């Protein structure tokens, strides 16, 4: 059983929802990432989504764009990030790690080389924002062959027939983007989200996560009512933005926000 599957099974047995924080690896400095990952697990993270920075993050809003820029100041590479995951794995063998980013850094490393290295490092899933299933005929089988779950986004614009195609290509979990727009956008309509998740549920038994627009304990709890997993990104990264020089405070604030979401989800 994959780590992601085991994680959702365990949560289900406890009647809990998954909490999935997103942080950009290497933001604001590569040295913070592994300790931050451990602290996020302490604070109640179920799965960690680690952003791979890209020079041109077309699908991200200003908050995550700036996170990518801060990380790239240090030339944080995909190889560096795999090394971070490997270090994290030395003391944590259970929390799944999903890499989220754009195709080009993977393409330049080589699909096969990446899949091997990611598996060896202990990566569990890969979410490639600009790789729809249609373009994944070559790379997706390689991911699966190396035990990497391909995670896909489903959007408010996704029609039923695409939901089905995505369900067929996906494993691990499916990530519903609650809004049209880039990461970090506002407002979220829980009833609408619930209706869309129900539609997606017709095509898959995989856990359904929801992200975009979750910024505090209240929104997390609301989404937790209807989804299997709650993904939070920009709200955490704002904590990095607030005190980029002070790693202790960043870790404390991110953990604090996550812990409040965890207890709201569990209440």
């Amino acid at each position, binding site marked *: 059983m994959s780590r992601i599957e085991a994680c959702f099974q365990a949560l289900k047995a406890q009647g809990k929802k998954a909490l999935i924080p997103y942080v950009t690896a290497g933001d604001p400095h590569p040295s913070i990432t592994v300790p931050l990952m451990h602290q996020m697990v302490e604070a109640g993270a179920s799965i960690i989504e680690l952003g791979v920075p890209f020079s041109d993050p077309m*699908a*991200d809003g200003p908050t995550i764009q700036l996170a990518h820029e801060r990380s790239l100041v240090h030339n944080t590479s*995909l190889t560096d990030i795999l090394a971070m995951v490997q270090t994290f794995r030395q003391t944590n063998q259970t929390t799944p790690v999903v890499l989220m980013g754009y195709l*080009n*850094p993977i393409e330049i490393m080589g699909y096969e080389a990446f899949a091997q290295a990611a598996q060896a490092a202990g990566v569990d899933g890969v979410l490639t924002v*600009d790789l729809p299933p*249609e373009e994944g005929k070559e790379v997706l089988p390689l991911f699966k062959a190396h035990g990497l779950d391909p995670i896909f986004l489903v*959007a408010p614009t*996704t029609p039923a027939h695409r939901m089905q195609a995505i369900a067929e290509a996906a494993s691990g979990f499916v990530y519903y983007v609650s809004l*049209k727009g880039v990461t970090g956008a506002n407002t979220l309509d829980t009833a609408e989200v619930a209706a869309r998740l129900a539609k997606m549920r017709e095509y898959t038994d995989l856990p359904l996560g929801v992200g975009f627009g979750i910024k505090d304990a209240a929104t997390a709890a609301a989404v937790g009512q209807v989804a299997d997993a709650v993904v939070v990104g920009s709200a955490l990264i704002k904590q990095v933005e607030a005190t980029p020089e002070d790693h202790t405070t960043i870790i404390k604030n991110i953990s604090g926000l996550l812990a409040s979401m965890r207890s709201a989800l569990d209440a």
Partner: protein
Amino acid sequence: MKFSEFNWNALPDATGHFGAYGGRFIAETLMEPIYQLEQAYSSLKADPAFQAEFDRDLKHYVGRPSPLYFAERLTRELGGAKIFLKREDLNHTGAHKINNTIGQAILAKHMGKTRIIAETGAGQHGVASATIAARLGLECVVYMGAEDVKRQAPNVFRMKLLGATVVPVHSGSKTLKDALNEAMRDWVTNVDNTFYIIGTVAGPHPYPAMVRDFQSVIGREARQQILEQDGRLPDALVACVGGGSNAIGLFHPFLADESVAIYGVEAAGSGISTGKHAAPLTAGKSGVLHGNRTYLMEDDNGQIIETHSISAGLDYPGVGPEHSWLKDLGRAQYVAVTDAQAMEGFHTLTRKEGIIPALESSHAMAYVMELAPKMAKDQSIIMCLSGRGDKDINTIARLEGITL
């Protein structure tokens, strides 16, 4: 492969690929809208009423056909092949960009979109989009790198006069690629009412094919005009390549003419060896950016490298996927000229023919100056004079230490 027997209209394939290049590498939110666009375009493309409307606008609003001008004095000075200039600079708004914006705006209207967005580098595509928006009464927002807002000030003012909102983009290198990123973000957010008019043959399928189709009027006219004026096909075609729309527009109708050599001219900036350039086909490698796979300027980690060119319209790290394919196939050759050479091309055309070219087009001119003398006097070259240089006079004055 025999170029004369190949079906050049068969690509892109049904999934938008030119061999390994092209495709649809975009976020899920945009996938369905891009399929809708593709569908709307392919039904309109087959509709004679649409073609008639497009042709009518090109004739009466843009002023087509644009002349094919025999540059006699320049030909004599260079002492080789006859040089013919395809005068896209004489189009309404001063560049080839308007051909494409007319086509896409008709499509936008047909799809019931009320708002158009565009990215722009030199500002020519922004001006063309603002122009067509004014004419059709559509809201228009143009994204432009903050660096380009500075160096193309006259065009920024033109866009504002036309009623468009110009949004300076401060992220990344503050040039064309960042404007494209920002336009994509707008589109993903406002996709219900918004049509994104991409200004070149890049982006996800169907943009590279659609923009090529709209710009191919350049080559179709030129082919007919040269046969009328010179009685034979040209021996070479030369066009500058930013994203590659004026180039593909000229090249495409000649691809099956095996005897016609094809040269795309990229911006070598300070020189290819300095690394400060914008020549992905000359010095880049394959990767994925802005919705398609193509040659890119990227580092070993797959991060996009900042480009450098005197010309805002060529200052782009990627290129349309069809050019990548034509390069690998050997049907077209891609060369690069430096900022300094482009300046020489600019002054030469201005002084010898009384035509002030855009800095983008000056790159093509510079290569013609290299190529023509090596060819025989009975041979001919068609160069795409993609735009006029009024927008660049501030840049040129500054480079030459002149205060206006």
